[in-house]
């Protein structure tokens, strides 16, 4: 029930941030579109962790497990960070909680270090690589606590990189080009894993034997495709949105 509790807390924090911003006369910064994106982000996380996908991922199909990971580690963090961009991010924590955290040098130093682009990317890539080592993958499937920890790792790593990609607090840790470069590097790193899964001629994860008419090998290849397609959709959309203003400027500029 940990995911439900966490989602409930997140929803409450978002709701109070919205109410506070609206009371200050800025409903434009806390519109229903933001609430819809945030709700969708939470729904994606809960559906991935509690719905039928979780049962299939744990018991029969690797590609469902990969789908679960990209949903909680990529799509949900993307939706949540886009939803809270701007002043909503500051209002997310009530003042009595935010003030001591913001004043704490340790918290600031930790966040500053974690959100350095190279550090955040290294954490994200290491998380991707480590949790796909067959031994660890199977171990996590056998031990629920480790499995839960794995899912927390996916969420944390996803939130770190998507905070840099979306820049919800306008900290400008990366320029637009830098964000495009990070997205491209993430795609290239994901592609390495995709290639290992798709190009392998033997099933790599002994816990999966294939199901529903899919052989273990086809299931594994599909899991690589799931990763590639999801990354193309999320990172591709981000890059298109980042570059759109420049393309428009280039089109309007006199030849």
């Amino acid at each position, binding site marked *: 029930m940990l995911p439900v509790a966490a989602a409930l807390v997140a929803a409450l924090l978002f709701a109070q941030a919205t109410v506070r911003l609206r009371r200050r006369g800025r409903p434009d910064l806390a519109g229903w579109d933001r609430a819809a994106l945030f709700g969708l982000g939470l729904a994606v996380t809960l559906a991935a962790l509690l719905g039928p996908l979780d049962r299939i991922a744990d018991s029969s199909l690797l590609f469902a497990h990969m789908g679960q990971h990209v949903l909680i580690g990529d799509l949900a963090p993307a939706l949540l960070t886009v939803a809270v961009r701007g002043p909503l991010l500051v209002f997310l924590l009530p003042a009595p909680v935010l003030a001591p955290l913001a004043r704490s040098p340790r918290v600031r130093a930790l966040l500053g270090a974690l959100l350095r682009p190279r550090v955040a990317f290294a954490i994200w890539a290491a998380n991707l690589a480590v949790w796909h080592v067959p031994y660890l993958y199977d171990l996590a499937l056998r031990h629920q606590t480790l499995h839960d920890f794995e899912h927390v790792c996916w969420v944390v790593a996803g939130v770190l990189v998507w905070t840099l990609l979306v820049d919800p607090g306008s900290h400008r840790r990366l320029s637009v*080009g830098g964000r495009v*470069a990070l997205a491209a590097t993430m795609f290239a790193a994901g*592609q390495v894993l995709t290639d290992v899964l798709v190009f392998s001629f033997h099933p790599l994860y002994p816990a999966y034997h294939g199901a529903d008419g899919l052989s273990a090998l086809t299931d594994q290849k599909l899991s690589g495709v799931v990763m590639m397609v999801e990354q193309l959709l999320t990172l591709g959309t981000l890059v298109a949105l980042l*570059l759109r203003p420049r*393309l428009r400027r*280039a089109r309007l500029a006199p030849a």
Partner: protein
Amino acid sequence: MSATSFSFEPLYLVLAAIAAVLYARARPAPRWRIVCFATGLVLIAASLNSPLETIAATRLLLIHLLQNALIADIAPPLLLLGLTIEMRERLDRLGAHRIRARYALSAWILAWYGTHVAGFYDWALRNGWALNVEHGILILGGLLFWWPLVSGRLSAPAALGYLGAGFVASSFLGLVFIFDSRPLYSFYAHAPRLWGFSPVRDQNLGGILMNAEQTLVFLAAIGYYVWRLLDEEQRTST
């Protein structure tokens, strides 16, 4: 004829020789451009005049797809990178300036998928001259696709969009080869086998090779344009 004997395909040898002579007669180019152009020509001429062609035309789809990747994905950008600015301007005067990115992309996709349609592929393999047509379409499609990028008419953001669209649009073919558990081409299903590959294994390996090659080529090109984007930002900020 042995499965690995050298083939002789005069058409592309002659065309490569003509291109080399025209290139040599133009104003001297920097060494790196000469190397690019020469490598592009060698890739086309050698892959069509070597055991690659023999194996591709008689035994293995895997090798045919390797050949197609060399002549359609790798040789064309090298040939175009080999052209100096004067040469590109000359091509522009001859009508190349009319090649819009969206049409080039569509033509390339059409060439890529069209030449791999089972009916056409099998027909081309059974008729020597038609195989030349297939290779010609692929080379031309590749040249068209890379022209808007190499001609420098696309800004870095536009080039990234163009490459992204090309990468996504072209990747389905490799995936079909990887996932299909039946041979798509009747020619290879009945061809004598080589190196112990079954027709399906041959096809799966071909798809893997095609996807891996395209991933490398496209990610390299995307990396270059991301670097240019960062460079432009740095120059604007200073």
